[in-house]
């Protein structure tokens, strides 16, 4: 029997708004599926595009970045920088064969626990529909020295 596909999502949340939104979702016992692993950053502007590529090449099926609403950034306008980076990153990964829908940017303020939970749930659904990305195995097959350590049972 094959197990249903459960996407692995990495979430990068900003300390001031969206991480608190996630916290609020938690304290108000708002349920969302456990597929997302959150990484807290000080600001969405701290998002180095390399984090996203590391997530994809390390096995993530989707990456979600959350920041404060435009105009509400704790560091004035760094969330606009995140917006520009995400838009350019989407254009960069698409020709490589990564559907840009696997990368999502969401604005959530500290009081929007419900919205946060809902967005996470929607995104997990979208990525589930896209299916597994499997990039880790692909990248490992490109490195002959790592091929030996590839687990046999996983189809590439």
């Amino acid at each position, binding site marked *: 029997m094959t197990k249903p596909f459960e996407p692995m999502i990495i979430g990068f949340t900003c300390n001031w708004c969206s991480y608190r939104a996630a916290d609020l979702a938690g304290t108000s016992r708002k349920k969302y599926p456990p597929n997302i692993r959150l990484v807290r950053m000080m600001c969405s502007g701290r998002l*180095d*595009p*390399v984090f*996203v*590529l*590391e997530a*994809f*090449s390390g096995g993530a099926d989707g990456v979600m970045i959350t920041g404060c609403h*435009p105009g509400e950034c704790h560091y004035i*306008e760094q969330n*606009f*920088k995140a*917006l*520009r*980076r995400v*838009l*350019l*990153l989407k*254009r*960069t*990964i*698409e*020709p*490589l*064969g*990564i559907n840009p829908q696997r990368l999502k940017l969401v604005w959530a303020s500290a009081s929007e626990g419900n919205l946060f939970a809902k967005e996470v749930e929607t995104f997990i659904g979208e990525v589930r529909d896209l299916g597994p990305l499997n*990039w880790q195995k*692909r*990248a490992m*097959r*490109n*490195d*002959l*020295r790592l091929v030996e350590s590839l687990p046999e049972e996983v189809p*590439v």
Partner: protein
Amino acid sequence: MSENGKPKFAMYWAASCGGCEIAVLNIHEKILDFDANFEVAFWPVAMDAKYKDVEALEDGEILLTLFNGGIRNDENEHIAKLLRQKSQIMVAFGSCANEGCIPGLANLSPIESLFETVYNTVSTENEEGIRPQSSYEMPEGTIHIPEMYPVLRTLDQVIDVDYYMPGCPPESHQVAAVVDLVISVVKGEAVLPPKGTVIGAGNSTVCDECERTRNVKKIKKFVRIQDIERFDPEICLLEQGLICNGPATLSGCMAKCPTSGAPCVGCYGPGPRVLDYGARMVAALASVIDSRDPVEIEAILDGIVDPAGTFYKFNLAHSLLKTGKASWNGN
């Protein structure tokens, strides 16, 4: 050591264009110093030699091998492994061996479409639709040609590499400096840097070596060099809207391209502490776009015609993603 007491040298080309060999010859009269200090054991582009001559050498008998080119077929892989076994010092020489370079861009396409491009374009005369086959029956027996792999790999994805010397091709003054260093090491006057060191390059970015004037970068429009009649000869090219890869690229070339008015394309590979070349370019360009409006940002980004090809022109095979999805499909 050879009979005349000189240490042995080898240089090999795998998937590459031959420019690296020319860069070595471009060291002019220094090549005589080189000849005085080394015996060439194997250098197919410069002199006749057979693989069996290399096979006959003792392990470690070659002191220094400069290996250029990526690993695209089983012959490349075989020779890389053979030379590794026979060499004390293995240098990944030039961008292809280091990071894939232009041949590495083929990792965006499946092998069938590469063959299609090469053997079946409008300008190709190939009415019988002949394609390379790795083995072919002849009356005299079976003949083999190297089997092409689905992707191009960098040298260090196949064998253990001692030093990395980047550049497409490495600048001749850098080659000369490395030759000097190795000769002094042979004479016992210097020691080798730690294994894994990037040699023949700087330790900063091309921007740092570039003498163009920099002001605050605020970009409203990206342009291509053919779109504009005249660029300011003094000011940073990126500020003028040209995509210049200087901010992500390792120094060592003395910023030749931007100095002469062409944007840096990134042939020296990722700068210090740059984990992924393309990611660094995305970060750098997104930071200097002067807009907060998603629609306007998209319109500005339309000016970057081929983001993956521009940001990974030299580095795809060694990037975090290493390949496009298409190249592995069906394999």
